C-alpha cells in the first residue's frame, strides 16, 4: 500500500512540475507582453493549427517516418556489423580506425555532401543521414557488449558444441543486449537531432521545415510550437524505448538485483 502511494506520488510530481512551469510561463508572458515570448495560450493554438488534425499528416508524419526508418536501419546495421567485429580481433584492428574517424565527424559537415551523393533532398537523403549518425553508438556498444561476454559462457558453448549461428543467437546476442539497448537510447535522441537538422537544411515537409519557414518569416509563435513538439517527440520516443527495454530485458533487471545481494 505504502509502495503504491509512493508510486502515485512520483507520477503526480512528474506531471505537476511541468504543469507548474507552463502556468508560470503563461502568467509571466501575459504580464511581460514581449513578442519574443508569446503567451502559452498563443503557442498552444499555434501548436494545434500546425501539428494536429489535418496538419499532422503533412509535417509530423514525414518527420516520424524518417526517424523510424533511419533509427531502424541503424539498429539492424549496428548489430549486424557489431557482432562479427566484437568476435574478431582482426576485424576490429581493421575497422576501428575508420569507425573512430567517421564517428568524430560533426554531422553538419556531411550535410552538403549527402545531398550531392544521394541526388536527393527527399526521404532517401534524410533517412540515410539519420541512419549514418545513429549507427555509431549502437555499433560501438554492440562491439563492447560482445567483447564483454564471460569467457566461462563461451567455454560452456564450446564444450557443448554450440556453434556459429546458434551460438550467436542463444548466447552472444542476448548477452550483449543490455549494452545494445544502452546504445539504442543514445541513438534515438541523436535521431531526433538529425531529423531536425536535415529538415532545417533542405526540405519541403517536416518539423524542421516548419521551423525554417517560420524563421524566414519572423514568426515566433510557430517556432515555439515547433520547440514544444520536438521536445515532446524526444520525450515520448524515449519513453517508448524504455517500455520495450523493460519487456525485452526483464531478466536483466532480475538478474542484477539477484547478483547484487
Amino acid at each position, binding site marked *: 500500500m505504502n509502495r503504491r502511494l509512493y508510486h502515485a506520488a512520483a507520477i503526480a510530481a512528474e506531471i505537476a512540475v511541468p504543469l507548474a512551469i507552463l502556468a508560470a510561463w503563461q502568467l509571466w508572458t501575459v504580464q511581460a507582453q514581449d513578442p519574443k515570448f508569446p503567451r502559452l495560450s498563443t503557442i498552444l493554438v499555434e501548436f494545434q493549427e500546425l501539428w494536429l488534425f489535418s496538419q499532422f499528416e503533412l509535417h509530423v508524419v514525414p518527420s516520424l517516418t524518417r526517424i523510424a526508418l533511419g533509427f531502424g536501419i541503424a539498429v539492424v546495421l549496428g548489430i549486424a556489423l557489431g557482432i562479427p567485429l566484437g568476435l574478431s580481433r582482426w576485424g576490429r584492428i581493421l575497422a576501428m580506425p575508420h569507425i573512430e574517424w567517421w564517428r568524430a565527424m560533426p554531422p553538419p559537415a556531411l550535410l552538403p555532401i549527402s545531398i550531392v551523393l544521394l541526388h536527393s533532398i527527399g526521404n532517401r537523403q534524410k533517412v540515410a543521414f539519420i541512419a549514418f549518425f545513429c549507427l555509431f553508438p549502437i555499433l560501438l556498444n554492440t562491439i563492447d557488449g560482445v567483447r564483454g561476454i564471460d569467457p566461462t559462457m563461451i567455454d560452456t558453448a*564450446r564444450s*557443448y558444441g554450440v*556453434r556459429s549461428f546458434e551460438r550467436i543467437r542463444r548466447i552472444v546476442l542476448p548477452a550483449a543486449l543490455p549494452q545494445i539497448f544502452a546504445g539504442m537510447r543514445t541513438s534515438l535522441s541523436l535521431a531526433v537531432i538529425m531529423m531536425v537538422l536535415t529538415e532545417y537544411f533542405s526540405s519541403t515537409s517536416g518539423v524542421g521545415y516548419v521551423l525554417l519557414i517560420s524563421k524566414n518569416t519572423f514568426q515566433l509563435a510557430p517556432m515555439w510550437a515547433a520547440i514544444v513538439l520536438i521536445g515532446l517527440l524526444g520525450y515520448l520516443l524515449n519513453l517508448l524505448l524504455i517500455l520495450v527495454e523493460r519487456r525485452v530485458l526483464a531478466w536483466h533487471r532480475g538478474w542484477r538485483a539477484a547478483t547484487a545481494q
Partner: protein
Amino acid sequence: MSTSGERLLEIRNVGKTYGTGAKATHAIADVSFAVDDREFVCVVGPSGCGKTTLLKCVGGLLRPSQGEVLLRGRRVTSPPEEMALVFQEYGRSLMPWASVRNNVLLPLRHKRLGRHERKALVEEALDAVGLTRFIDHYPWQLSGGMQQRVAIARALAYQPSILLMDEPFASVDAQTRGDLEDLVLRVREEFAVTILFVTHDIDESVYLSDRVVVLTHAPTEVKEIIDVDLPFPRDQIATKELPDFTHLRGHVYRLIKRELVEPSEELATATTATKGERA
C-alpha cells in the same frame, strides 16, 4: 568397480606451457593416467596446481603443449560430443536470460532429435536433480546449490558418456555440498556415466571416487594414484566413520601436505591452515 569397464579415457604425458622463452610458465609438466568406463576418478592437488588447466585439456577446450588425450582411442582435439563439462562458476556458465528449461535445452538444440525426445530429455534430467518444479524459473531465482543442479542436469541431458567436473561444489555451503555429492553418486548410477572430478577437497575426493589421482604442485605431475575400495552405496555419516576412509583421507592429506612444505615453509603453514578449515 574400477575394473568393471573398458578403458574410456587416456591422458598420455600431457603438459601445458603458457608463453615462450624466459617468460614461459610450466603449468603442467607431465601427467598420465587413465579412466575406465563407468569409473569415478577424482583429481586432487594443492591450490594452483593446474587442475583446471588439465581438465580443459581433457575436455578439448585447451590444446596441450605436449602429449595427448585419447577418448576411446581417438585423439581429442576439440570438445567431443561424448563429454560434458560442469564448471565451478555455475553463475557464469548458466545463461541468466534463459529459463531453467532453456538452459538445459541449450546443448540439445543442435542434436538430431525430435521435439518430443528433446522435451523428454530435459524433463528427465531435471527430475533426476529434483528441480522439476523450477523448470520455468530463471537460474538467478534459485539458490547456489540449485543452480549447480541445473548445470548438472544440463550436462546429463546432453547424454555424455563421461562427465568432467571442475570443482563443482567449491562455492556452495558445507551441507549443500554433502547433498550434491550424494546427488552426483546417484545420477552416476542412474545415467551410467563415467566421471572425472577435479577438487581441492580431500574428504570429497575420497568419499566420491573409485580412484584418487593426487597431483604435485606446478609444474604438475602425478604424485600417486590411490584405489578407494570403500563400499557402495556411500553415506555421508557411515562411510566417513569407516577406518578405511580415515586412513585413505590421512594418506592423501599427507601427500598433499608434503607437496606444500617443499616449495616454501612459510607458504605451507599459511595454506595448510586454510585447508584445515575446509577439511
